[in-house]
């Protein structure tokens, strides 16, 4: 029994030690695309600093209390094994602990509260008037983005990949279409829910160009795990070019397979999807007019390459079980044709 106990005891210290040493090493090497500690933009930086500050306070508290606890137990422990042999007594001076401990804690807490309010005031509104307003709708299980403009001809709808101009604040209006989702781009902004029946307004800004992931963060059903938006910050001129490109209608099919694909697409997919310039005008599913400008499909689930596209069309339930996209029951040829057509939607 003794030997087993000693073995267990060694394991209890060795195993965590090994695991802990591996983790930081692995962490230094890995990428953290969804960590907000690599913030970008005027809405992110104050929050990142506040986080580090609160983390530091938390860490210090844990270390101090842990040390006091362990040291106290070891230093003050009774030598006798039998509890009755250790006498009962009441020494004075204990209240000092309460006064100092609670006092210092209260100061730290109030300091944190003041800092919190300061950060809130800082990020409450954008630093300058937003140049773009985008209406983002959370739906099961994808994101619709509608770019607003005073010029009606420039209003355009796209899905899942949301471009913004880098270095300029952007206003976002969040709309709920079915259940509650939450829009979050950790590198740029905190979360705001999309709630049916109300419009939530927030803003964000990316000060450098880049691609920023935005997973849905309010449980919304079967495929909550696969509902990621990508916010792509472009230099302002690239952004304008992208917007112009989105407004243009879809290009026409070039060859016979693509033409067959277009017919098949309109027939099988047009009730739900829209491709401007064709008869496909459904609005319950993502807008696909410029599908090939996006890096991912199925709300960030798969990279946008032909084999993935074909696999998704052939068997959406296999990729995202429970998705609202029905199994279309297409033949291999039909899948190939439609994929070929979709590949033209640049």
């Amino acid at each position: 029994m003794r030997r087993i106990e000693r073995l267990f005891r060694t394991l209890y210290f060795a195993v965590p030690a090994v695991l802990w040493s591996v983790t930081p090493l692995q962490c230094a090497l890995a990428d953290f695309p969804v960590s907000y500690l690599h913030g970008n933009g005027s809405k992110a930086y104050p929050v990142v600093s506040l986080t580090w500050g609160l983390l530091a306070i938390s860490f210090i508290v844990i270390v101090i209390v842990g040390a006091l606890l362990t040291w106290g137990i070891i230093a003050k422990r009774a030598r006798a094994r039998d509890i009755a042999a250790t006498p009962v007594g009441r020494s004075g001076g204990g209240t000092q602990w309460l006064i100092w401990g609670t006092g210092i804690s209260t100061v730290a807490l109030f300091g944190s509260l003041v800092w919190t309010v300061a950060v809130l005031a800082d990020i409450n509104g954008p630093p300058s008037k937003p140049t773009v307003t985008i209406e983002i709708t959370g739906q099961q299980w994808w994101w619709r983005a509608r770019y607003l403009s005073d010029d009606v001809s420039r209003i355009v709808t796209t899905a899942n990949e949301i471009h913004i101009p880098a270095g300029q604040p952007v206003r976002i209006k969040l709309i709920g279409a079915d259940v509650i989702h939450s829009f979050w781009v950790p590198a740029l902004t905190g979360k705001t829910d999309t709630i049916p029946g109300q419009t939530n307004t927030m803003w964000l800004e990316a000060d450098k160009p880049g691609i920023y992931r935005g997973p849905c963060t309010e449980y919304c059903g079967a495929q909550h795990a696969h509902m990621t938006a990508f916010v792509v910050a472009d230099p302002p001129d690239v952004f304008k070019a992208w917007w112009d490109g989105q407004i243009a209608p879809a290009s026409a099919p070039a060859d016979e397979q693509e033409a067959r694909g277009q017919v098949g697409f309109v027939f099988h997919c047009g009730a739900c999807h829209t491709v401007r310039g064709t008869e496909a005008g459904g609005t319950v599913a993502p807008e696909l007019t410029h599908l090939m400008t996006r890096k991912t499909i199925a709300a960030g689930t798969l990279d946008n390459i032909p084999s993935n596209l074909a696999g998704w069309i052939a068997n959406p339930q296999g990729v995202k079980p429970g998705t609202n996209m029905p199994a279309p029951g297409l033949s291999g040829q039909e899948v190939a044709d439609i994929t070929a057509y979709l590949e033209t939607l640049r």
Partner: protein
Amino acid sequence: MTTLDIERRPEIAKVSEAERARLLKIWETRPGLAGFLSTVDHKEIGLRYIVTAFIFLILGGAEALVMRVQLARPEQSLLTPEQYNQLFSMHGMTMIFLYALPVLSGFSNYLWPLLLGARDMAFPRLNAFSYWIYVAAGIFMYAGFSIGAGPNDGWFNYVPYASRQFNPGMNMDFYALGMIFLGISTSVGAANFIVTVLRTRAPGMSINRLPILIWGTLTASAANILVVPAVSLAFFLLWMDRQFGTHFFDVANGGQPLLWQHLFWIFGHPWVYAIVLPAMGMVSDGLPVFCRRPIVGYTPVALSTVATMVLGFGVWVHHMFATGMPNLALSFFSGASIVIAVPSAVAVFAWLATIWSGRPVITTAFLFFASMVALFVIGGVSGFMTGSLPVDWQLTDTYFVVAHLHYVLIGINVFPVVGALYFWFPKFTGRMLDERLGQLNFWTMFVGFNVAFLPMHLTGLWGMPRRVYTYPEGMGWDWLNLITSAGSFLFALGVLLLIVNIAVSLRRGKFAGANPWDAPTLEWAVPSPPPPYNFDVIPHVASRHPLWEDRLEESEARTSLTEGYLLDHGRETIGTTPMDGDIDLILKMPEDSYAPFALTVAVAAFFVALLLHWWWLAAAGGLLTVGAIMVWLWPEHDLGQTADAGHD
């Protein structure tokens, strides 16, 4: 029929064998099934609560382990999304509703009359009823899961996803009706605790001599009385929307999804304090025993218990920080959520001071109680971080919150509960739990828990959302999830070791006397296990530490344990004034009764009928319920409720 005067002088006497035999005859429960169904003995009911809660703990733990296997590696497909979603919902519901409060109710039920110097709780039949309803409601909710129709919208059950439009199956109906059903148990249990502590204490037990466990459970009960109706109402409104097409939550017709969140969290936040404050009370009572001194700062600790709960009523919106409410309103709740840490700090430093100014004896119980202080602080600081509004906007709905809630729930509920088991097991059973196995049990649980949940803070900071059945690779979460899964299995092994220790010690544990820990409070003055009538005579209490008075020598007064009020004219206990504990009346206690069980069957029939839309059965169940209540409440001579029992 014994004659009952409207008044009498209670007899004072010393204990004797003959007297003990008399009291035993008056108080003992019939053997066999008859006794099982009709007992109102608080000790029996308390043990049933603890055992049932542990069964649910194991069920909920199994659900978690299956989830952790699925999440150990990215992009796994061991479970379908629907299976995973039901598992995480059942796990949350089981742990928070069917384990966390009932286990504390169990300990409180067993211990309160013993701590207070009484012979039973204020409402013994209501006590039995609250247990039977708890079991029936638990079975009701698991029935759905067992046919594949378990709740699948999380324990918090947000609308619109919970409405019939998005969730047409019976999943939500099991949950909604089950929660209303369970709420009956919680509410009557809470009422029982409140009236017991206000009216049935031993003489001399003034309000500043109550053990902290009493303060903790009292505070939790007062909160439950006020907030359980909020969640019952929320579930009722949801059930109405789903069955009858009302428009509380359906947005298309002007429903308000946020009303659900307000009602739910107005209940939910005080609830999470209700499931930790009694456990903190157990630590505040148990830790000092092993430090061989009274707790430092009894009054601040008692008051901080109440303050935490009062503040706890004012923070519920911190669960709704991302809903787009105006920042000004949210800031108030953020401030309150940060400030609520102050009374918790009082308790933490009281425990530290008790250790530093005492002589800690390192038993297994002590280890569980002491480690709770560390886990409390870790859980507390992660809560403090999420209390800061802009930081919460980044951390909410990520694994950071999962880490936080497990540190506070496992750290401030499970660890104290296991410590309490090691501490009070000798009193419950007359045997000690094995100390060697206990140390193994502790270290396995402690290491396993921290290996599982400490990395989760990182997982959350690095952006992994909650409630996802799988995650992509390349996010930096792979190793962290694997470590968490491994740790969770080690933790489960620790829980298994606890069960093994209990099983082994029940048969071969060392025999314990009345007071194996040389502890100060009244429950250690009676044999282990206690006789059904608890005390031979009602003690007259002179301090907070009746059994340590000779050694502490803080005053001349001594608690009287061998001579006091006899109260043997049938089942009787003493009634005292709320603040000072002066004798006020002699309470007649009911005999064993089948009414609580019968009433539970009627109420269960009613809820099953509602679930299935069998309206005639529901009406019949309702009538049976009324009938059973009438029988129960029929005025009885022996309880002094009728004029022929002496009147003026």
